[in-house]
């Protein structure tokens, strides 16, 4: 009986483990192996070990710039999503049940629309002859549009990634004992002080989780940078697409993919480590 009971937790995680192994670990291993193969236009994939693909990314300023741009895009998107999403989450915890329902629906709405439709919606708003342009025209700013800029990509990404921040932060905020901020206020702290000294530190785990999700999703997004950034705005995902689909250079595309995975991994580890050692480490234990 007890042996059977002991096996229950394993049985429970079994389906998830299988899915994870088959659809994540196995492809990742294949991808890693592929990234060390050589490729020639006339020969196709050559099954010999080479570091050429990685040298090409890591030792060439053209590709390093693309790595940098991807990092910057993901960081800026994460920062802005937090700035926009945090107040929404804060308001959510204080709102009435009805208002909360409406806001949660509004916050989740970008996820209900397919990425293609949503992205082309943004093209119609910020593109040439778009809504923004016709609104700005009477103000004397004619022909202004910011489609195919980094700002356009950030706007599109913040739009779709905000739910992740809001939900993560709300969970953290709801876990705070309401007595704690009250205690601070009754001891004479101003509302701002209560927020910065009590609520914000207590919600840090949620904020950090949301930020990491946004960072990793933004750094690997494809449709948004491809459509809103235009073909001149190259990030790792669009380079991967060009190499894999247009040039059939799967080994190089695989190396770009592994590079992206490594970057996200390093950022996540660093951020978690810093959090666990920093001033508010108690929050993460």
């Amino acid at each position, binding site marked *: 009986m007890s042996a059977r009971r002991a096996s229950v937790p394993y049985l429970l995680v079994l389906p998830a483990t299988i899915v994870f192994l088959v659809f994540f670990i196995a492809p990742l291993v294949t991808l890693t192996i592929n990234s060390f193969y050589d490729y020639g*236009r*006339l020969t*196709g994939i050559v099954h010999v070990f080479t570091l050429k693909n990685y040298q090409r990314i890591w030792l060439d300023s*053209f590709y390093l710039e693309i790595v940098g741009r991807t990092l910057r895009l993901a960081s800026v998107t994460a920062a802005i999503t937090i700035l926009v999403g945090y107040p929404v989450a804060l308001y959510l915890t204080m709102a009435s049940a009805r208002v909360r329902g409406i806001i949660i629906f509004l916050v989740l709405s970008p996820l209900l629309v397919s990425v293609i439709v949503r992205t082309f919606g943004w093209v119609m708003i910020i593109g*040439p*002859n778009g809504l923004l342009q016709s609104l700005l025209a009477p103000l004397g700013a004619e022909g202004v549009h910011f489609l*195919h800029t980094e700002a356009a990509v950030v706007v599109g990404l913040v739009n779709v990634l905000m739910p992740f921040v809001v939900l993560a932060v709300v969970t953290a905020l709801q876990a705070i004992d309401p007595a704690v901020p009250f205690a601070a206020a009754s001891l004479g702290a101003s509302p701002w002080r209560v927020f910065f000294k009590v609520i914000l530190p207590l919600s840090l785990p949620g904020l950090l989780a949301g930020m990491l999700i946004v960072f990793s999703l933004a750094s690997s997004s494809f449709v948004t940078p*491809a459509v809103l950034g*235009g*073909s*001149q*705005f*190259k990030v790792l995902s669009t380079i991967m697409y*060009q190499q*894999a*689909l*247009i*040039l*059939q*250079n799967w080994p190089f595309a695989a190396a770009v993919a592994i590079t992206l995975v490594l970057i996200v991994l390093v950022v996540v580890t660093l951020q978690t480590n810093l959090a666990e050692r920093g001033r508010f480490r108690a929050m993460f234990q």
Partner: protein
Amino acid sequence: MPYRSAKGRGVDVTRRAICLATPAIVLSGIVSSPARAQEKIVLASYGGTIEQFMRNVAIPSFEKETGIQVVYVVGTALSNYSKVMAARRNPEIDVYWANDITHLGGKLQGLYEKLDPNIVTNLKDVMEVLRDPDGIGVPSNISTTGIQYNTKIFKEKGWSPPTSWLDLWDPKFKGRVALYSIGVLYSQEFLGSMARALGGSEKDIGPAIKKIKELRDTNGIVAFPTSPADMDNVMVQEQAWISNNGSIRTLALKDRGSVLEYVDPKEGAALFSVNFEVVKGSRNPIAAQKFINHMLTADMQTKAAAGMGYAPVNVNATIPEKWVRYMPTAKTIHSYIRLDREVMNKNLDQWIETWNREIEAKR
């Protein structure tokens, strides 16, 4: 019910055989026959105007004629090529509609079957200069890459139509030039044509890259569309007034009353083809070749010219009156630029890399 002859109950063997064979050929396209597994082929093809024509005209007549069902897969030459390559051990696609480069690339990697001239009987009517020397695959339609421009704007400004690629460098087009992203064949054709015009060649694109970079720095490139539909938007919305585009794209738009016009540059328009390939390992190579043969008949080629704006390769096909001046024929085909596909295929990664770095990059 498969056969109409249900009333003839005590039919003898011969009549029964005829009853079985005839409808199989003639009727199974019209009358469904659930009892018999239907032969079918998977065609990896294109979207847009081409898809409309294939679904409404070409495929129904083939299914009616042969009883072979065609499963239509939408993609681009490149996305479908990736599929053919990825599934080379167990192909799902029977007929792949390639472009020049993927025809050659796939041929070199042994992805396609040789065609049997006894099944693809119309092969003999295909312009000889276009046929594959090794009999692998066959060009099905041709078109050209030249200059597309907006006649409405040109009329308003009182400008005469462009005649040369170099007209794109004219300062009057400042901020109004669009070039395809280099992943699209039209820009590869443009780059190769410019290389030749400037004394380089497919092996030496340096001069062309330098000149096109100059275009970017002086006139500016307002957009680098990554698909023909993308370019249509840029041109129709008048973001750009002039671009490098295929005549087929312009003809499709002209058919719907667009003010866009196409002209062959005096340096020569670059000729390209789309090619049918039977994928190696296809389970239905005969049905696949029957389909290819169907697409090559003079009748279907004539209809394709009118319906898709693609010039025929069958010498017996007729080009509609309105498109005569746009379409190459067996007589005029030698006046077009035919870039060396072998060199292009070999160097494509360098072409794209150089263009990415020098031209299609954020400044």
